[in-house]
């Protein structure tokens, strides 16, 4: 541990809320990414005042501070590359207010997404960004990443639901950003800037979030395709037709094979499947949207069309997609599923071509990749299945990742749709945003002149993500 007065931290949060054992630090040095780097100390604040005191101390002594929710990030956002204090925000977990008439709720950053939705349910409303990890993901972490999920095609990402934030700045001062109103035109929308800033601009201590009514009707359908291009064209045609699906997911053949191999689900061995969903308060309107989407599927040679309003039937239809994540992890004893180049977004018209390109690049680099994702919001997920103990596999992965991002930029896509940049995607991010990096650095300096908030991330991250930190695997 370097230059840390732990007794001072203990006096702020209490001795029982400080961890300094090497084992704890090693644990808090990991998240769901490939990276590993230990903090010097973990502190667990219980309230805003404690966060302010910690930040004032850290700023004075120029100690790095990394804010952490559940540590489920996939790009190394919470891996403290420069050491310092990791702020574990899980103790600030209160749902402070649910205000149905003003249509907002106020929560502390450690509230778990699913908990919030459970609390909102009796009011007939829900908080919509909900990523796949909602069972453990904290609102603070979702704000840090501008998280989104399967229904973001209709309801938007986290940024669209954040009305206001209370943020402790690097010097320990507290600012109230945004408002408790649906619209605001009062100067810079700094709360929107904080969303997706990955803990580099301040520590969120309270969020005011909008919510939407739970739809009375929800219908989910599936369509199979013998050509990936047909599925891709269907996505573009649906999104360009004025229909607003509440979910539009693509699963490619590699993914289908993985699910069948590991889960024995017996899904049709087709080149692609599309899952489409519509929801609303009026059944006829939902019927109309489902029928319209099915019509587009048929026009593009989709077959095996099935749809249902029944919750159990919907669960069956969605099972293949739901099991995909674990299926990829269990694909082979030798291969590990890694999150690299895992959430790019491309224009709808390029969706099928992107999936093809991903397979082509994977084959050329001797690794296995799959393509799936929330294509309704332009997001394409991938996983790289590789032998993580082989150095040459990391070289291959690095090359493949670089080629994929080069392609994504060439079609005016973007590096990350929902998982953020962190360490793993920093080099691609810097290439994509080269003309605005200087501006971003100036903004960072304005918020954090001593560069203590999550240093070494985004534009300050290492260009070679493989050597930026220790890898979490034993590489030979």
């Amino acid at each position: 541990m370097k230059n840390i007065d732990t007794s001072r931290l203990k006096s702020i949060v209490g001795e029982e809320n400080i961890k300094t054992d090497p084992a704890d630090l090693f644990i808090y040095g990991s998240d769901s990414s490939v990276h590993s780097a230990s903090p010097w100390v973990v502190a667990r604040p219980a309230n805003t005042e404690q966060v302010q005191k910690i930040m004032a101390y850290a700023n004075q002594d120029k100690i790095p501070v990394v804010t952490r929710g559940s540590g489920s990030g996939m790009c190394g956002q919470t891996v403290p590359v420069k050491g310092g204090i990791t702020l574990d925000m899980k103790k600030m977990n209160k749902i402070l207010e649910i205000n149905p008439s003003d249509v907002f709720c106020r929560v502390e950053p450690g509230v778990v997404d699913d908990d919030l939705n459970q609390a909102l349910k009796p009011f007939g409303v829900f908080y919509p960004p909900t990523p796949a990890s909602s069972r453990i993901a904290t609102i603070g972490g979702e704000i840090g990443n501008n998280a989104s999920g399967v229904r973001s095609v209709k309801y938007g990402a986290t940024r669209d639901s954040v009305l206001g934030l209370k943020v402790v700045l690097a010097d320990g001062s507290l600012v109230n950003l945004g408002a408790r109103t649906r619209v605001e035109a009062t100067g810079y929308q700094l709360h929107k800037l904080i969303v997706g800033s990955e803990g580099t601009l301040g520590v969120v201590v309270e969020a005011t979030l909008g919510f939407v009514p739970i739809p009375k009707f929800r219908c989910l359908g599936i369509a199979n395709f013998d050509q990936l291009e047909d599925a891709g064209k269907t996505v573009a045609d649906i999104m360009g037709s004025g229909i607003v699906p509440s979910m539009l997911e693509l699963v490619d053949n590699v993914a289908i094979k993985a699910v069948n191999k590991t889960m024995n689900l017996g899904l049709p061995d087709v080149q692609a499947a599309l899952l489409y969903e519509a929801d609303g308060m009026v059944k006829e309107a939902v019927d109309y949207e489902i029928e319209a989407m099915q019509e587009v599927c048929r026009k593009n040679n989709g077959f095996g069309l099935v749809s249902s309003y029944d919750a159990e039937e919907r669960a069956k239809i969605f099972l293949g997609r739901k099991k995909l994540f674990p299926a990829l992890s269990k694909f082979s004893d030798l291969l590990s599923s890694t999150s690299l180049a895992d959430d790019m977004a491309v224009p709808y018209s390029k969706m099928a071509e992107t999936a093809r390109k991903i397979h082509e690049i994977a084959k050329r680099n001797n690794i296995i990749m799959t393509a799936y994702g929330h294509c309704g919001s332009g997001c394409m997920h991938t996983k790289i299945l590789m032998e993580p103990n082989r150095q040459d596999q990391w070289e291959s992965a690095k090359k493949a990742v670089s080629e994929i991002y080069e392609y994504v930029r060439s079609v005016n896509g973007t590096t990350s749709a929902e998982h953020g940049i962190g360490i793993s995607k920093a080099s691609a991010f810097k290439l994509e945003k080269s003309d605005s990096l200087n501006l971003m650095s100036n903004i960072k300096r304005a918020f954090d002149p001593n560069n203590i908030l999550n240093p070494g991330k985004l534009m300050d991250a290492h260009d070679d993500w493989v050597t930026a930190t220790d890898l979490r695997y034993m590489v030979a």
Partner: protein
Amino acid sequence: METRPFEPKHLDKWKSNLDSCIRCGYCYEHCPVFKHTRWESDSPRAKLIILYGLLAGKLEPSTYIADKIFSCFHCGRCVAACSSGVPLIEVFTDAKRDFKGTAFEVSGTTSITNSDCAACLTCVRACPHEARDFINGKIVTDTVKCQSCGICIDICPNNAASSCLSYGTNSSALKNEIGNFLEKDTSKAIVFGCNWSYYPDFQSSKMDRAPSEYKILINMCGGRLEKTLILEPLLQNGWGVLVACCPDGDCEHDGNVKAKLHVKALRDLLGQMDINPERLQLVQIKHGDKAGFQKAIDTFMETINKLGPLKQ
């Protein structure tokens, strides 16, 4: 006692599984140890990270680490939730094997025996895991075999069995929780929920307003609730007690049978004391039936609210 150096011999075969873990963290919400401490480093994922650290030579073995490895109730919920199919319990058991006999071996949540032991061998006979034995005139626990089920603790007539770490599940911790909760004016009832049946359904966030009228306290098994503990909420001005346990045949310890006997006897006793026995109820809920459990609590609270406070 002579010790041997720590060598990760048994752990070694799990290297690829430790790589397979994608560290998604989905195991957290299911782990009673994590739920009690709320420290990430007490989650199943953390245990795997530690074991990777030991195998990779990035961490040195210590009693601190051993305490984490030996702290597991073997409920297996993390295994069921694992995205990557890592057999966590098997990995942890092999880690315990590697720590056993070293200077770092600790007891964690496994059972220990104190000097009050009369060597009656009741615990040896009762242990379903063959973890207790009578050696050289003493009862000893095999910390690798022990699954921290607590049956020996419950059954010992001399109260000579216990565990060093209970993570809020032993009688004294539960008694404290009851007292702390029922101190509030808004508090009315205690719901005892079995660790094996209900715990995964409870999430971590808290509502700041409208404090709950009841508190759910997790115990190791309905059958392990002492009669005095079941009555404790009523002694502390609570309005009622709900004991939740598994349906018939579902409890591998037959703890539900014992819980039913306890509750029946106590309800009779309440009747004799002119206290409405409805203030103490037992429900049997199928594993994972979250809605059923909530419905049972709501129905119970309706009854309790109709009955009003115990002392009027």
